């Protein structure tokens, strides 16, 4: 189990991540981290990978504080938790052929004995849908999708239990994206993987994650089972985000909830609720008091002072029943 507890990350004086707590259970399990630019989602990934110092809080793997690990214990952590970035180019050494790049991971972490390297590289390539001939190629000889498969194969080489997937398909063409998403879904079952999936794309998160957390200016403002969160978003920002997603099918389109203004400068976040200057439901309390993330019903949490009042159907039905859920956004839509 990987836990992020009350995480604070400060760059200069900007609180990029401000008190975020997330729990990733054992796999197969996906937790989606959703947010727009500047929300802090990639900073969380880098903190979990121990690539940046924390200003507060902790990252725990099976109860052990990751930032206190040294030597062998740290190496074990690096094996247990691997990251896949949006841009495979930045993770693959352009001068290194695919085979040696994967072999290096096997060697550093002593995954198998040296005479098994060649065989294991072939197995890993096959697992991600690449031919064994790929191992003699340089990254630039591969397509974007193939490069991302290589990045996944190299992450899997050390047999991690947990992956951090940071926008893994955002730079890919849509047909390629669909194949990579299928690959991740397959691997997750086969290898019992748990992952944080960082994405700006709600549909991608829905496909691959049981649970999702929505970030706004470094804080989690809503969290819950993905289906529930997307069909009945309770926070005004999540509702706006959800309604902004373009749909191919006209029948799926929702009344657009437009949020005025732009995301404030994270160096000077507004007092009280950070969304208050853009929120159509703002009342005096929102400008004075920061809403805490609290349970709305069952596993669905929201950081909004007016959550119960704004989501009466959701609360009274305990979040169950498609009809009740289906009504909620429309009822609220008339308030906007």
């Amino acid at each position, binding site marked *: 189990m990987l836990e992020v507890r009350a995480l604070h990350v400060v760059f200069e004086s900007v609180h990029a991540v401000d008190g975020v707590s997330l729990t990733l259970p054992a796999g197969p399990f*996906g937790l989606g981290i959703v947010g*727009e*630019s500047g929300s802090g989602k990639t900073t969380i990934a880098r903190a979990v990978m121990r690539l940046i110092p924390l200003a507060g809080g902790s990252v725990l793997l099976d109860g052990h504080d990751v930032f206190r690990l040294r030597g062998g214990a740290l190496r074990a952590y690096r094996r247990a938790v691997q990251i896949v970035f949006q841009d495979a180019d930045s993770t693959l050494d352009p001068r290194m052929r695919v085979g040696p790049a994967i072999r290096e991971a096997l060697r550093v972490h002593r995954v198998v004995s040296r005479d098994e390297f060649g065989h294991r590289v072939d197995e890993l390539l096959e697992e991600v849908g690449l031919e064994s001939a790929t191992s003699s190629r340089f990254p630039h000889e591969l397509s*974007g999708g193939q490069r991302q498969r290589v990045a996944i194969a190299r992450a899997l080489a050390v047999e991690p239990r947990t992956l951090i997937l940071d926008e893994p398909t955002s730079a890919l*063409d*849509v*047909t*390629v*994206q*669909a194949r990579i*998403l299928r690959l991740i879904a397959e691997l997750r079952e086969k290898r019992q993987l748990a992952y944080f999936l960082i994405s*700006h*794309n*709600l*549909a*991608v998160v*829905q*496909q*691959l*994650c*049981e649970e999702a957390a929505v970030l706004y200016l470094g804080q989690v403002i809503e969290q819950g*089972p*993905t*289906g*529930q969160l*997307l*069909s009945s978003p309770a926070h005004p920002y999540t509702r*706006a*985000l*959800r309604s*902004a*997603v*373009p*749909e*191919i*099918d*006209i029948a*799926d*389109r929702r009344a*657009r909830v*437009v*949020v005025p203004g*732009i995301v404030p400068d994270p160096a000077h976040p507004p007092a009280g609720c950070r969304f208050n200057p853009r929120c159509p439901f703002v009342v005096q309390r929102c400008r004075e008091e920061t809403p805490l993330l609290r349970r709305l019903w069952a596993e669905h949490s929201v950081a909004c002072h007016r959550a119960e009042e704004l989501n009466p159907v959701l609360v009274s039905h305990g979040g169950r029943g*498609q009809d009740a*859920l*289906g009504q909620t956004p429309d009822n609220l839509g008339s308030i906007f």
Partner: protein
Amino acid sequence: MTLEIRNLTVSFDSRRVVDIDSLELGDAEIVALAGESGSGKSMTALAVVGLASTKGATVAGSIKLDGTELIGMPQSELRAIRGGRISMIFQSPVSSFDPVFRIGTIFRGALQLHGASRAEARDRAAEAMRGVMLAPELLDRYPHQLSGGQAQRVAIALAIALRCEVLLADEPTSALDVTVQGEILELLRRLREQERMAILFISHDLAVVAELCDRVAVMRMGRIVEVGPAAEVLRAPSDPYTRELIASVPKLTSAAAG
């Protein structure tokens, strides 16, 4: 205004990257060129503004704006059309502005180049900024002082100020956050209604195409594989590639994740 493309080919040496039999764009119409990377959609737009040849491509065929042939037109005449009657906006608006000039200076330069006086230029710039719902004060800023969404609005405002008739929009929302994307799409719709601007909307995102465009031409390997009313093509695609493209788009449904 009518833009007519006939038998357009764009080639690099012997490699043909665009091969379009026929495509039209009418008054106040929004037509999508949809496809994946390398499909030739951006190169088609560059050919329309006469910039494909500056990238070393050979352009042949016919592109007519209200009956006037653009292919083979001298660059001096093309310059008057480009930025005048036809404008182009890009995925990354900040980088399409010269970083050393204030936004107002960029507007003035472009408007004066197309015959406006200094005072006229100032008034038209301010009016265009209000038209995209930006404070005219932003004209005093430098490009890097704008957010991505603001910069894209400014690029659109410039097209409005130039009274352009055809806007070529190359992935104008792909680099923007989804809520900002929604605002820009809304703005493009208004542009068509109020300014009667015709828009050639280049995108890899079929969901955005579905929300914005009247017609869609799906491109693959330089060719248009399917063209028709956007709602029809996306509901009942006849080409197998279009079908695959549509099936690949991750869809939000009310059903919970597995």
